[in-house]
């Protein structure tokens, strides 16, 4: 038993946005969330379907695939720059079946909390969500980046070592990743 296994969580009241354009990805993530007890899951196969959900429902957590044509990164940027508080701050776990170095840099600069390589596992989802809730991670607004703070020792989850560490990366891993100018978000407090 790992030390983190004894931590207690209640996922039942969470509202989770799930964006994945692959039937397999949607099915697996949906089953994991259902198994965790999440009762309200917004399943969207496209960015176009996800935007109105974000505007109307304000989910507590988003699991967004990188999507065909890297549309997932654009959706994350849109959330961080265009959505009002508190939705612009929601933790975002990005999943990806295949990543090139360019993809990783893009993922890290768009404002995600974690990039998780598929296959997605229940253990990974619990660990990452639990860490997000323990870390009190600052949120940064600058001309070139809007999203969870990417630097500093607190950005590296202590539990992520060894095999699983290779399966996901935090923005701290890519603090020096290329960054592109962003619009500043308005109305954030």
């Amino acid at each position: 038993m790992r030390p983190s296994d004894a931590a207690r969580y209640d996922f039942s009241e969470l509202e989770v946005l799930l964006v994945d354009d692959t039937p397999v990805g949607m099915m697996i993530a949906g089953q994991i969330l259902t198994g965790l007890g999440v009762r309200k899951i917004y399943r969207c196969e496209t960015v176009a379907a996800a935007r109105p959900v974000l505007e109307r429902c304000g989910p507590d957590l988003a699991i967004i695939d990188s999507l065909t044509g890297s549309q997932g990164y654009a959706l994350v940027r849109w959330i961080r720059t265009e959505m009002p508080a508190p939705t612009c701050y929601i933790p975002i776990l990005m999943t990806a079946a295949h990543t090139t170095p360019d993809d990783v840099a893009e993922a890290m600069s768009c404002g995600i909390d974690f990039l998780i390589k598929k296959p997605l596992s229940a253990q990974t989802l619990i660990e990452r969500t639990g860490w997000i809730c323990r870390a009190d991670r600052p949120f940064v607004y600058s001309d070139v980046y809007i999203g969870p703070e990417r630097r500093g020792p607190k950005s590296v989850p202590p539990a992520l070592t060894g095999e699983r560490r290779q399966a996901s990366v935090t923005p701290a891993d890519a603090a020096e990743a290329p960054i592109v100018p962003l619009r500043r978000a308005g109305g954030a407090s």
Partner: protein
Amino acid sequence: MTAPTRVVTPALRVCRLIRGPGGRTAADLAQAATDSVAQVAGSCEAELWTLLAAAERACAGLPRDRSGALAEIYALARRGVGAGAVCGRPQMDETLVGLCDLSHDLGRQTEGGAQAVAVHLEAWRLILQAPAGQSDAALLEGLATVRRRFAGTPVQVAP
């Protein structure tokens, strides 16, 4: 003029909700979620067969439309990643990610690689036909060796 960097620490609703009183241990939750995922093992396996058939058709089209066929194979392999772990064939996921790597690398080249794609599709079929839980490290190593032949090759510019 550069605007100053601003830092806030938002109170996330997700934190309040999942750390509320009660709840279940992470170990219990992980087991429940794993059991839940196991319910779709059959669907995942069926999807892998469907994707394989489509990938084999796309592979047959490589000589006619190289870039289109490679893009199709990439998309099909990407769609299957994750299903292997659910239906007791984790090496399937490694094979599919490898096929993504291969088709991505081949997309940067103007010729060759059809046999390498075919070998990956044959491995895809073999893994699906084998009983769940069976592992073949030599097969994965062989595929990796094939991919290394095409990885990192500079883009060839047509004259």
